[in-house]
């Protein structure tokens, strides 16, 4: 049994109907701040009695209120949970929730009407309020919630409702019940009692003397008639109190043999305390109890498990959570995170993307229709930096490091005219993701359904976030040209001639991604933009007077000979002096071609060049013209394309 679907309306940021599908086992919900991750967890907590963080009663803030001037908060909210994977035992227990269906439904509705601090709420199972509803059934669903800011130390130390006492009680539940029935002490209680008696009676300890002294003075003061007996001992006498007075100690590694070396938890690191805390919860969660005491299903909700942990520990913890969810049949784990480390270490199928939009949308990545090879590819490739894309409000996918470096700077030029707060990609929360190759087919399937003419149509869900791809046209490098044959005058022979494109002299690209354009650009959120002439650097050089600046950079980067002149440096210094805006396109094209060649040369390299020119553009007052395909891509990813059209 697991929570398969959650429908929320009028609750927190979910003003309209919001749906999220969850899967058996581990679920990792990712998304920007304010997308509604906590609201999802809170909605689940509204339904169940959560045994770890106490009761969560409805407050007026739970009723959604949109950020409009005339907005009123919602008059009610409703939460509906659907459970799948039910066996016969589940179905019998939850019969009115199930009806004739295969899934069980639980509904909650709350009215925004406060009566002495309480809000009226109705819970019912199945599709009619009038069905039999046993509130005890909710207790058969064990829900544990760990908030993002958890005080692990307090929870682990001794005190009321401590973790240890809960675990011990869970372990001893059956025995305690039997003891109560037989009216005898639990062995632990008996041991403590014995110990207390031994202490009180021991002549060598001063406890006995102290007690006698007190009694004597008391009797002297108030006389025999009013006299009282006293006794000095450790206070605890029943199981709960004993368990609550136990505390957890630690030793930094597993080698300790001397018990005296263990330290109290306030000397431990925050991160380790957090891990200890979670470990104690997992210990209780995975405890297999007697059949009739066993909850139907256990739900573990953790907000930001990464808190206080360094990346390696984050990954270990997540993997452990995953194995707990997989190995224990009736355990489902739901995690929210901002950690790119977590997002990149978990398999794509467990990730649920949450978009921050007027109407938040949850997209389980397993429903995006990724073919198995794409899915495997992304699983392997989604590293810490690439998993950025799961948290961005807009995404620009690029092929290489040069684009990744220069794009944010070019974006500033493009966004110069925009209002404050929209002047750069960072302002707008748009990420540039370097795919290190032409892998649009795999990644863009997350944002749109890519259809190739010879393939079946994929009907997957899409992440409702703008995604722009930037790719090179890559026309053929050479063209066959007929030239007079030097051997045989009057005759022609075919040779490969370098192809240098310019307006009026263009060829179709050879880039295989170009075939996807039609399908991608027909989608709602994704667009693939192709360079006009050839590749990034070439196209940059073709615009305005960019070639001059680029030539200057090459000249400055080209290794200087120990003595004499470098013809390359001279050549590019000359080029830097030309006003390329006044040159005919075929001349500029020649310049662009040699610029591209030198950048590609091992003496410079695309990455280095991109970094230096980025610095130049950032610092200097140089005018740099951005090719329109890049401009369009940036505006698309920033959702500013419509404004442009007006």
């Amino acid at each position: 049994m697991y929570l398969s679907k959650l429908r929320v309306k009028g609750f927190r940021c979910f003003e309209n109907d919001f749906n999220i599908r969850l899967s058996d086992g581990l679920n990792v919900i990712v998304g920007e701040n304010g997308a509604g991750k906590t609201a999802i967890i809170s909605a689940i907590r509204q339904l169940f009695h959560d045994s770890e963080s106490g009761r969560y009663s409805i407050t007026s803030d739970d009723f959604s209120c949109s950020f409009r001037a005339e907005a009123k908060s919602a008059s009610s909210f409703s939460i509906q949970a659907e459970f799948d994977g039910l066996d016969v035992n589940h179905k019998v227990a939850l019969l009115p929730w199930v009806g004739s269906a295969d899934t069980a439904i639980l509904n909650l509705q709350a009215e925004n009407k406060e009566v002495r601090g309480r809000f009226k709420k109705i819970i019912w199972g199945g599709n009619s309020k009038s069905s039999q509803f046993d509130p005890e059934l909710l207790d058969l669903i064990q829900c544990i919630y760990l908030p993002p800011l958890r005080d692990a130390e307090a929870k682990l130390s001794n005190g009321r409702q401590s973790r240890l006492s809960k675990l011990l009680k869970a372990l001893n539940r059956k025995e305690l019940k039997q003891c109560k029935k037989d009216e005898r002490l639990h062995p632990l209680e008996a041991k403590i009692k014995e110990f207390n008696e031994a202490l009180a009676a021991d002549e060598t300890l001063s406890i006995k003397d102290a007690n006698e002294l007190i009694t004597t003075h008391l009797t002297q003061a108030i006389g025999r008639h009013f006299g009282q007996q006293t006794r000095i001992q450790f206070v605890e006498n029943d199981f709960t109190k004993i368990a609550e007075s136990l505390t957890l100690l630690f030793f930094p590694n597993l080698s300790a043999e001397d018990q005296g070396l263990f330290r109290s938890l306030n000397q431990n690191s925050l991160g380790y305390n957090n891990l200890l805390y979670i470990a104690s919860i997992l210990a209780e969660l995975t405890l297999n109890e007697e059949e009739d005491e066993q909850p139907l299903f256990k739900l573990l909700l953790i907000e930001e498990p990464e808190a206080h942990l360094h990346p390696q520990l984050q990954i270990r913890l997540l993997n452990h959570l995953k194995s707990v969810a997989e190995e224990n049949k009736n355990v489902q784990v739901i995690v929210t995170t901002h950690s790119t480390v977590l997002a990149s270490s978990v398999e794509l199928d467990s990730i649920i993307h949450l978009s921050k939009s007027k109407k938040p949308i949850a997209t389980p990545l397993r429903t995006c229709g990724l073919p198995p090879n794409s899915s495997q590819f992304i699983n392997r490739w989604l590293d810490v930096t690439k998993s950025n894309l799961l948290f961005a409000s807009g995404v620009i996918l690029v092929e290489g490091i040069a684009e990744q470096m220069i794009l944010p700077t070019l974006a500033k030029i493009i966004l110069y005219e925009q209002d404050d707060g929209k002047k750069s990609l960072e302002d707008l929360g748009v990420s540039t993701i370097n795919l290190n190759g032409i892998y649009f087919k795999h990644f863009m399937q997350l944002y749109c359904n890519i259809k190739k003419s010879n393939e079946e149509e994929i009907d997957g869900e899409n992440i409702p976030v703008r995604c722009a791809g930037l790719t090179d046209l890559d026309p053929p490098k050479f063209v066959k040209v007929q030239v007079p044959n030097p051997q045989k005058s009057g005759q022609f022979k075919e040779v490969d001639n370098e192809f240098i494109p310019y307006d009026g002299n263009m060829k179709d690209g050879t880039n295989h991604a170009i075939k996807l354009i039609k399908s991608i650009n027909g989608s709602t959120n994704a667009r693939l933009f192709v360079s006009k002439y050839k590749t990034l650097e070439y196209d940059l050089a073709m615009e305005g007077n960019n070639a001059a600046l680029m030539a200057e950079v090459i000249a400055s980067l080209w290794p200087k000979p120990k003595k004499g002149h470098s013809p390359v440096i001279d050549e590019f210094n000359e080029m830097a002096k030309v006003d390329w805006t006044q040159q005919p396109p075929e001349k500029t094209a020649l310049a662009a071609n040699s610029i591209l060649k030198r950048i590609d040369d091992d003496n410079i390299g695309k990455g280095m060049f991109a970094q230096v020119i980025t610095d130049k553009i950032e610092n200097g007052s140089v005018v740099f013209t951005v090719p329109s395909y890049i401009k369009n891509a940036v505006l698309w990813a920033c959702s500013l394309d419509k404004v442009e059209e007006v």
Partner: protein
Amino acid sequence: MAFEFTNEQFEYINSSIENHVFLEACPGSGKTEIVAAKVAKEIDSWSPLPSGLAVLSFTNSATNELTKRIAKYLPPGRSMFPHFLGTFDSFIYKNIVSPLATELTGFTGDNDDASIRIVEPSGYLGYRSKYQYGGRGNVYAHHFSITGNNKITFDTGDSIQNRTLNSLVLKDWEERDLQNVKKRMLRGGLATYKDIECLALTALTSNNLCHFVELLVKRYPLIMIDECQDLSEEQLTILLILADNGAKLHFIGDLHQAIYGFRDVDPEKISQFVRNNDFIELKLSRNFRSCQNIVNLCSIISGRDHITGNVSWLDSRCLVIQYKKCPTELIGIFEEKCNGFDHNVVVSRGHSILRKFQTSVSKLNNIQKLALAVKLFNPNDMEALNNSMELFSEFISYYLTESCKPNSFNCPQSVDSNLAWRKFLCKSLNHLVSNDLKHMQVSWSDWVKRSKVLVRTLSKQYFCPEDISTVLAPLDEVNLTSPAGFAKNEVNSVLGSTSKSTQSYRMSTIHGSKGETHDVTIVISTAQAGGQPGSHWQSWLNEPNSEAARFAYVASSRPRHYLIWAVKTLKNTERERLEAIGFKIL
């Protein structure tokens, strides 16, 4: 527990829950206590979670009583989960029809809630048949039910109309017409109690839902029916299907006390059911309530013997008192006979006799209901206040355009809180009384004129909550008129003098007194034989197997100390007949 069980009682408490069992319990045998003890025993040793047992009775008060007694045997604070305690109707409504509401009726509901609303025949609904029937116009969908084999039974809330319609032989197209309008009503999310029963039967017999039935029987593998003599034929069919799927049944009751003939309850069918399904039959034959004198008389009425009573008295404990015209003449004697006892009840077959004790008008029209409600209103007398509010709510609901909840003072469906409605009724009555409507030494026309103004402005009063005020809209333009022919008469004279409400005895119908224990029971017979069946004493003595005899049996087995029949002045032969069975004629 201070209660000591007899062998008969122990035998049932220790009976197997792996078998069908029928426990026949005579009146006063401590049946409820035994059922409670049995249920508590089973609950305490219950293991197969998440299954539970279902203990069903037929009235809310019986359920409440049972719950209270079971709680005595269980550790405090122990919840009833996973067991179900409630009425038969609520069991099938909550556990069969509601979870399957959409599948059964096509009603999709709104706001994720497809609860079916129950309507009474008196409710106001717009689902009408296309054609007219029996010269009575179009028929409303909540005024008939369609049981198995497409048998159509009318229940309009008006007995004459019922008789006319039920005697019709319906043609095919008429049946289709009625089926259609019923379907439309169900799809609209409304149903009568009878419809709920039919829907439950549909669910249990439908091929697509057999999986559900299997689960239901796993959920409730043991069903105990208290007062099993009240099981109707449909209810027996439902139980039969559950039994066929593996559920075990325990019936507890007394077939001699079956008095629900008007609901198609036939004790013969129940005993047949018990025989056909190999029930183990057990008996409780010791009456702890009544003295032997009363037990003996009851044996004659019911034709059943071998019941042991409590004590035997030498003086007569079964009395007959006579009235000349109207039983209200006997109020003085009732007082005298009840003197010295605490729980004394005057019972009769129908409400009409009881009402005579409140007013001389036997059937009240709507304006008279209002007048009587005002007249009875007395915040210090719970019984009078209850009657007053009931009458006043009937008066109001007559004008409203939506259906009401009859068990909650006719609270309109759209008013969420029954409490708010009760408060409103009480404050309204208070408002009417403080505006001098209790002054009834005036002509009807004057009184009606004054009340009209007050009733029309009820919705504007400060004590009227917003939602109720919306519902009351039709009252704002209501037109009230004097009872026909009485415009000039004094209100008080037409209403008659209310007999003063005494503390020494209570009034109840025989149905209402079922299961009760009284010190003195006064059973009133109508003056004329030939009224409502079972309301005249002669019919009580004619045939021990008749329902009339069962009425007399139920009523006469209530008292501990004195049984009094109030009858119209007897002829000599009649005297002898009553004396012969053990009565002393006063």
